[in-house]
């Protein structure tokens, strides 16, 4: 049952997307072959897909942790921008340090910056009761303006027409998988951050279901009044959950800056924060589900490029249409509940008769 609803939602979204493609006079089967097929080629398709899945795993986890505490973090987008800038800043300013020192500092910069940016709306909710959804939305815009200002006026290489920072020190570069695994091509940007993302999933799982802290966070999300009765400070959980959520979103910066571009590039995020909401929702706020959902959305993002190039009319915008439709169907799962229960009853009756 836990798997059924997400699968049905994805299938329904593909049907809706297919209708759109038909309406503009293209072939949905060909479109979907291009969309999904290209992601499955070894090694480039799969390598790029996993590379694109990496930030989505982080943001999906971020949204899930907040959700387990009863909070909706719409602010992963802002958190990951601030974090990416912070890690680039560390990699530039402290560039003289040896890798053994610089690397952990860059990691910490991303996580701490994201955590602080996430904790602010958490604190505002705990202290003043203001709604985290509105505040995280506002914090997104503030973050984007802030890092854009810093890039443009303080950290741009003089004369560079592109809105990007200088390069970080090579000692803060994360290895690409191709550097480590001999038979994996080095041109694919899939890097150690992917392993970090899987590790983060395991840690989040253990944290939520094996530690007292995770218990408290989930209890506060499940029933705040009962949590308080059990001696748990709900306000603290709100701040802690938003900080953890922001920290996880901030780890996108590690992939982007340390693992991929080696500099801060303004406007780099392809809506990772918002897609993270879809990932968490489709993955049922469970780390394993998050990985699966992140890979699915990465397949779509990757497949948008050949769709753009090789179909007659369909553009890569089909990806966002599918994404949005999947979110809608997962969110409104009640839409499927009645027909599905009826179907199951009929099947059961059929089995009894036969």
């Amino acid at each position, binding site marked *: 049952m836990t798997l059924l609803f997400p699968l049905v939602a994805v299938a329904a979204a593909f049907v809706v997307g297919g209708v759109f493609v038909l309406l503009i006079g293209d072939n949905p089967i060909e479109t979907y072959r291009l969309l999904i097929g290209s992601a499955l080629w070894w090694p480039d398709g799969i390598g790029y897909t996993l590379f694109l899945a990496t930030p989505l795993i982080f943001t999906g986890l971020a949204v899930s942790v907040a959700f387990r505490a009863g909070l909706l973090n719409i602010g992963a987008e802002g958190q990951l921008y601030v974090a990416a800038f912070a890690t680039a800043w560390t990699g530039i300013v402290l560039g003289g340090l040896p890798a053994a020192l610089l690397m952990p500092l860059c990691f910490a910069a991303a996580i701490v910056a994201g955590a602080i940016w996430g904790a602010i709306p958490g604190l505002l909710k705990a202290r003043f009761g203001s709604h985290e959804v509105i505040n995280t939305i506002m914090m997104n815009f503030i973050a984007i303006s802030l890092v854009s200002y810093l890039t443009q006026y303080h950290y741009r290489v003089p004369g560079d027409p592109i809105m990007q920072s200088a390069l970080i020190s090579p000692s803060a570069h994360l290895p690409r998988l191709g550097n480590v695994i001999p038979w994996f091509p080095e041109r694919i940007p899939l890097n150690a951050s992917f392993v970090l993302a899987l590790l983060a999933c395991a840690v989040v799982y253990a944290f939520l279901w094996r530690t*007292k802290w995770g218990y408290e966070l989930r209890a506060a999300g*499940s*029933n705040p009044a009962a949590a308080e009765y*059990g001696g748990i400070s709900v306000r603290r959980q709100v701040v802690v959950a938003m900080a953890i959520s922001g920290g996880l979103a901030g780890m996108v910066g590690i992939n982007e800056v340390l693992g991929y571009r080696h500099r801060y590039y303004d406007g780099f995020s392809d809506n990772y924060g918002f897609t993270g909401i879809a990932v968490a929702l489709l993955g049922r706020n469970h780390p394993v589900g998050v990985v699966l959902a992140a890979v699915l959305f990465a397949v779509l993002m990757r497949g948008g490029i050949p769709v753009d190039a090789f179909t007659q009319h369909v553009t890569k915008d089909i990806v966002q249409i599918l994404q949005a439709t999947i979110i809608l169907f997962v969110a409104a799962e009640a839409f499927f509940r009645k027909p599905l229960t009826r179907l199951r009853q009929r099947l059961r009756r059929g089995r009894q008769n036969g």
Partner: protein
Amino acid sequence: MLQLRGITKRFGGVLANDRVNITVDPGTIHAIVGENGAGKSTAMRIAYGFYTADAGEILIDGQVRAIERPHDAIRLGIGMVHQHFMLVDTMSVTENIVLGAETGTARSIDLDAAAARIRTLSTDFKLLVDPHALVDDLSVGQQQRVELLKALYRDARLLILDEPTAVLTPQEVDELFAILRAMREQGKTIVIITHKLSEVLAISDAVTVMRDGKVVGRVKTKETDAAGLARLMVGREVLLRVEKTAAKPGRVTLSVRNLNVGAGGKVGSGFSRTINDVSFDVRAGEIVGIAGVDGNGQRELIEAIAGLIEPTRISGDVALEGVSLAGLDARARRERGIAHIPEDRHRRGLLLEFTLDENAILGVHYRPPVTSGVLIDDGEVRRRSVEIIKGFDVRPPNPELPARALSGGNQQKLIIGREFQLRPRLLLVAQPTRGVDIGAIEFIHRKLVALRDEGCAVLLVSAELDEVMSLSDRLLVIHKGRIVGEVDPAVAKAGDIGLLMTGGH
């Protein structure tokens, strides 16, 4: 006037109404009585269209009618005053009353004409309330009048009142009854849902008795008495005494001195929700009961001792075994040996989505032996939950089920088992048997007495006078946040306690 025929209603696995037949004669006051959870409110909410029945039919003036929404009921002349008032706090009395029955053109409302009509109605029925006041500023009694006016404004011929006296002072109850009688004189039909037998006898013409979702009797009020009704309600002779030996009180465990609790929200002018200069002791090995009408500060008292109320709202002192608890939060108080069975198990007591395992450790989840360091010890968790399930006969005995899957009685046993497992020095218990079946009630009562006999101090709050009288060794009476008397439950008469509870002397 109103007739329910074969009404059946299920909520999930719970059969709330089982082939219920109720007949209300026109121009009478009809009482529907039963214990909490007997299905009284469900039946009437179906008549008002708030729920739809799974089976059965509703007849108005002898004709079968489809009532699918409150709108349908209102059109048929039915009005309902819900236990929790259905008012929009931020709007005026007039706006609340005209809502859904607006006069004037479709384009604009004529609020002045409405206010004039409300004035007429309130003089006719002696329901005095300022049409321009904000609902938020009204006392509970005044809000109830707004609800009555709402029904009258819609020309209701049949008025259903769900536990209308639960939140009223005795004077307000008298006033309400006078109003209801006046309405009957004017030809209205009234249904009153209650679990207080004295009120049934005072106001009604006929009574329908419900138990476990079924109608178990319908009698004329004149032809019955309290004992007869009580027998019908609980299905056997009322067990007035819990079997217990005399208490052997030890040293003082809990001492409360000059405790005040400020109301968090707005205090209605006629009704205070604060605790007012309360002082008392509870000794080891005794059960001290607090009797009172619901909402007279019982919850605040318990929660203040448990550490669940913001310290800024509290003054005075609470001490456990001579050591002040000031400045300690709920967790620190639990660590000092205070256990707490809360009045509302769904709101406070359980994490409904969590498993029995996870619920079994709420409050001790962070400390040895459940957690040493950071990781929760699953083996220890299971050992504890199985101990509770076995010791308190929680069914079904599956520790991996979510708490939501249990019946009310089993949920309550799970909570009680968890709190007993703490081996507390002080147990705070509120409404321990609310919505619990008869068998479980006796079981819970026996367990409470057994805990007392092990030397635990027990502070018991219950709205059921029978329960506090039969369980307590000493009985305090609370009214409007003050302790207004102490009686010996072994010799006191229920009537005298009732008088104290309602502020009389």
